[in-house]
């Protein structure tokens, strides 16, 4: 897929949008301890903004958001630059998003531990030069999405729906009925990512 900028969001039912502060030290620790295998730079707190980007772990090539957009908390992974080869981009984005969810779910300092849903995701392409949020824009990518998601969900039935207005970046909601757990999904896209910590 020719989309260097790509976002994947996985939703959570138990992240309390009024108490995102607890994720700030976690992200700082990820920077300090090089928990991820990429250069992370800073943590930005936007928890005061209604349905905003929440708390952001800002990196050089990617950002990780405890995102509140649309009033649906979740972990949003955003590839900004240094994208992998076109055929690898979706897989890589899902892998990094799932990996971050795995780390948060296992973090002993978070109480209650956040839980992320495996049966639903949002794919966004924040690049209006090449991708518009309309039916032709969606149709041009649908097949590629279906192929990848078919592998991710091992042939389970997947429903893709374009969402948002045509002013928004191309956004596609992914829903499947029989999703395995996050760890299984993560293993299907390459397994956990370990930093140098």
């Amino acid at each position, binding site marked *: 897929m020719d989309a260097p900028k790509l976002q994947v969001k996985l939703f959570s039912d138990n992240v309390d949008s009024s108490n995102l502060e607890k994720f700030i030290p976690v992200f700082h620790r990820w920077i300090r301890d090089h928990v991820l295998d990429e250069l992370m730079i800073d943590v930005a707190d936007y928890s005061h*903004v209604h349905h*905003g980007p929440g708390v952001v772990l800002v990196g050089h090539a990617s950002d990780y958001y405890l995102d509140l957009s649309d009033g649906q908390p979740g972990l949003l992974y955003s590839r900004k630059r240094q994208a992998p080869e076109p055929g690898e981009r979706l897989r890589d984005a899902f892998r990094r998003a799932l990996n971050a969810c795995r780390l948060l779910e296992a973090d002993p300092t978070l109480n209650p531990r956040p839980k992320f849903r495996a049966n639903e995701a949002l794919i966004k392409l924040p690049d209006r030069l090449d991708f518009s949020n309309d039916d032709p824009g969606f149709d041009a990518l649908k097949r590629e999405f279906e192929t990848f998601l078919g592998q991710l969900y091992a042939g389970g039935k997947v429903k893709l729906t374009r969402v948002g207005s045509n002013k928004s970046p191309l956004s596609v909601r992914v829903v499947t009925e029989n999703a395995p757990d996050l760890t299984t999904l993560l293993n299907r896209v390459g397994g956990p990512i370990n930093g140098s910590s």
Partner: protein
Amino acid sequence: MTAASSWKEKLRERMPESLSREIDIFETQIELRKAGKIGDKMFAETRLRKGVYGQRYDNGRRHDGEKTQTLEFPCGDLTKGPETVWDAPGMMRIKIPLGKVTPDQLDVMCELAEEYSDQILHVTTRQDIQLHFIHIDETPDLMRRLAAVGITTHEACGNSVRNVTACQYAGVCNEQTFDVTPYAHAAAMFLLGHDDVQDFGRKLKPAFSGCKDNPCGLTTFHDIGCIAQVREVDGKPKRGFEFYVGGGLGAVPHPAKLLEEFTPEEELLPMMQAVCRVFGRLGEKENRSRARLKFLVNKLGIEEFTRLVKEERTKLRPDKRWTAFLDDLTTLDEKPLKPGSELNAGGSERYKAWLNTNVRPQAQPGYSCAIVTLPLGDFTPDQGRAMSDIAREFTNCSLRFTVDQNMLFRWVSSGDLPELFARLDAVGLGQSGAETISDITSCPGTDTCKLGISSSRGLAGALRHHLSVASDVPAAAQSLHIKCSGCFNSCGQHHVADIGFLGVSRNVSGRRVPHFQLVVGGQWTENGKNYGLAIGAIPSKRVPQAVDRLTKAYAEGRREGENYRDYVGRVGKKTVRQLIDDLTQVPSYAEDPSFYSDWGDPREYTTGDMGVGECAGEIVPFVEMGLAASERELFEAQVILDEGNAPMAAERAYQAMLHAAKALTRERNANLGDDPDEIVREFKLHLCDTRLFHDPFVGDKFANFLFSAHGNGTTPSSSSTAHQRIEEAQLFVEAAHQCYIRNASPAS
């Protein structure tokens, strides 16, 4: 899918030729810098003039709370300025003249925040928009997309004429003399890229106000401030401006001085041009900390500066643009979408609260202005698009960013207010409290600014929550203004707040503790007429408690109709100080480590190895004692000034500097005595000549305050010079703290 392969190609027909060319040149300069064919200082100024700014950690280093780590950016040694790594994310400042933005422009800025930034648009105290965490390689396309909707980032930063700001109510205000919009707009367009503004030693900020009494234009602390005036000339009303120069906040605030009581409208632009010429020719170029226009005006005196400007005016080559805009002053007038209507009573309590604080009637019957409260000046692209849609549907007019970091809808048919509120509320923008105590202004501070000392945004967020949710603010205190700056550069405009805070740090038993200096009694009204004075430094985490006490005392102790400035003036700063005295104490780290990290940032504020060595342990208490003595002296100077004894106040401020200088110098010369000549001489030898006292950003500026006061011999006698001496002493003492911290802790 679109056919164009680049934004340049896609937008070619939609960009003004001149802007398109400028952006192409900038893109070329980027490539030349990458090829090593432009020096980094030259490139730094080049990008700054395009609004491409640095951001915290762009030197490639970051302290993680335990140690400083190197950020291994892939660009290697490539820099975009001295000590500025190419790949490090930066800030993009988008210059919005008068804060006036169309719905289409707002939509594009929202797209940019989504595609290049971190999903947030930030309104500044000068009506700009800032996007953070931007990679420089993406800035040319970002600029093209702005250019296609008529926005340039040119001269948004750098040594240039910055954004021209103006009262957001211009044209619809009940109290304006006339609408300054066409004049401010003409000035912005005229000065943009003008030959006479290319040779400044520092930036120059102009502002326009439609009246003298309200705070919207804030002309008092701008380099050029123009206040609308009408005079009768030959029996006819004639428009013009009270023309002020040399105002500024920064480390030492200067109120603007009157250059001309009435500058006729046709003389506005040539007078601005003449000021720019004089500033460009005579302004300081070497010492950047003395290079703003205010220093030139002070150095020359307003009479001489005025004479030079008027002389320069006679030498200017006539320019049609000086008066062309006067041919039709209505071209920027906004036509409302709907007829005016009456506001109906009723609605929810939430709506009524919003109506009470966020809505004001326009001068035009049947229309209202509605303020959208933006917490910390932030909003999301979704919220931005919602605001532009609302503007299209309700007003078909521009929106305006405000100096309070909010957004303003104008020309709302008053009967539509309930529906407009409902639409705003649906996207989380229905918060009441605009221009009240909980509507706190803040600069970026340590969140993203390289100069930030303490987390002003963190504090503002904490106070905002505290004052709107947790605390029961007395009704009398609801209208107070709180403003927070992360350092002495005053971007949060704390000097003109009723209650202001500026970020400082203190050393407590070898650990660094974030503090905020409390400044009270500034005046927001009358264009930010008066500046407050410092009361004392409070640990960051105790600031909300301090605000509770200050507001409670004001509510209980004020006289009928007495504003905060007058109240503080009456009870005296000593009384105010007593209110917070116990809060200035910092518990030990073992007792409460939370004091040793800043708001919203769990990293330990201090370095891990500070105060560990025995040697430091022995010296530190002596130095701290001396520094504490200097702070006491300084506070007393303020009290004495309040009592009307300016010469004595100035003398005490000088003594405060001597105390601090001695405290630091004695570490290097144990035989140091009390003779002022000796202290100053030895201080110069051991701390200035060695550059130990040099501030990383302003060099020897603060040391020169001491030398100047010492060299003057005779004590200044006027209140204003004593006030300035106190301000300078405050900065000197603060610099002494920083010097002590730097030299006590190699890691910091």
